[in-house]
């Protein structure tokens, strides 16, 4: 059985509807919300602030510290057990690694920049939505960045390469391969590449081309959100 029609009626290279908003957490240094389909991510950045324990301080550059968390009520049906888990620790780490090459923290030695990513509602692609929100929040916090980061999942569902998998597709009865990709927006350098499942080398190349296309579309939404924040505040020019 091949996967001819997507569950939600999208084309194979079509993203779910997206939305981005800057400045959603008033008390944070910078914050952003990113939604793709039914997945909502909120990211808040605090800092630069003093890093404790002191032994972890680096006198040459600041540290980026990310924390990913799925809220207890966020899942599709089942309650997510609150608190850190093996999964959330891993995603915190890959979020950090996806963002670290693009932020320049040499101006903030001995400090830490905390990025908290909270998933309010989830429907697959949470780490990707989290990275998109975190990149926006870092920009809003005024942290020097060489580039923004966009992220999307691609995969193989029922023999077809598709863009931006939903939870239903990830759980396809014929099996699905899920590849999370994050790219810098200007240079299209890959900063995150994870895969769950099996895929041939040729399919992977095709999938990455599709991811590039998806990231380009996400980039436009992200940039527009950053601009809107300042155009709207001043009731337009």
């Amino acid at each position, binding site marked *: 059985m091949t996967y001819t029609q997507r569950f939600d009626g999208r084309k194979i290279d079509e993203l779910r509807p997206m939305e981005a908003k800057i400045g959603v957490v008033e008390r944070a240094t910078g914050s952003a919300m990113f939604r793709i389909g039914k997945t909502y991510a909120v990211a808040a950045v605090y800092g630069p602030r*003093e890093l404790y324990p002191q032994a972890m301080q680096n006198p040459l550059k600041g540290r980026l510290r990310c924390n990913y968390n799925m809220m207890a009520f966020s899942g599709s049906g089942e309650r997510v057990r609150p608190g850190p888990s093996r999964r959330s620790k891993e995603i915190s780490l890959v979020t950090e690694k996806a963002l670290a090459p693009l932020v320049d923290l040499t101006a903030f030695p001995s400090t830490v920049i905390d990025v908290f990513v909270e998933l309010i509602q989830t429907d697959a692609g949470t780490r990707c939505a989290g990275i998109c929100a975190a990149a926006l929040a870092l920009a809003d916090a005024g942290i020097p960045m060489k580039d923004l980061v966009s992220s999307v999942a691609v995969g193989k569902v029922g023999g077809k390469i598709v863009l931006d998998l939903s939870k239903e597709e990830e759980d396809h009865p014929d099996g699905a391969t899920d590849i999370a990709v994050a790219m810098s927006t200007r240079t299209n350098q890959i900063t995150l590449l994870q895969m769950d499942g099996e895929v041939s080398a040729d399919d992977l190349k095709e999938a990455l081309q599709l991811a590039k296309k998806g990231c380009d579309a996400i980039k436009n939404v992200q940039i527009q959100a950053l601009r809107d924040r*300042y155009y709207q505040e001043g009731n337009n020019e």
Partner: protein
Amino acid sequence: MGLFVQDKDIVVPGQELAEGMDYLPSGDVIREKDKLISIKVGTVSINNRFVKVIPLAGKYTPKREDLVIGEVVNIGFSGWRIDFGWAFEGNVSLKDAVAEFVEKSADLTKYYNLGDWVLTQIVHVAGGGKIIDLSMRGPSVRKLGPGRLVRVTPSKVPRIIGKQGSMITLIKDSTNCKIFVGQNGYVWITGEKPEQELLASEAIAKIEAESHISGLTDRMKVFFEEKGITRKE
């Protein structure tokens, strides 16, 4: 080749501003191969061949000779620790604060106590911002009396002060308040009546929200006129 943006355009991190060697990177702009790239969200400012980005958001980073407003958070044997919104506290040593001779076991709280707010000057920044020396000596530094604190984005401070202090004078004259602005984005307002202080903080909030749009001074004059305030010239 050439510029991709105009003066005062809003740009985002990673945006290409110019190509070729005709333009030079200045504040918050980097060169990558032959392209100039913004590293912050901000407005473009082009000065001859120099392209810089004035950030619209971000925390204050301490610079030498800046006047900042902060709170006394700790008292040691020979000085005070001041929190002024940066990752690290600043240090005011006794010799930079008090002119008279002070006994070794003296009670330092009689000069500056915990919870006091001060307008102080940065005299030394070391270790990339980890060690900051502040001074309470100079023409404008002082202990701040009763009043209220307003926090603004540090990059908006020049707009609150205005050209040769024109904007801050407008607010002071219109509200009859004393106002001190720290480069760290802390603004201290002292007035005779709470209503005057509230009006001043409302005006400052308006400047912060609209500072990147031209014609700000005229709009602020209209703002005060609408509030029914006639300014003494």
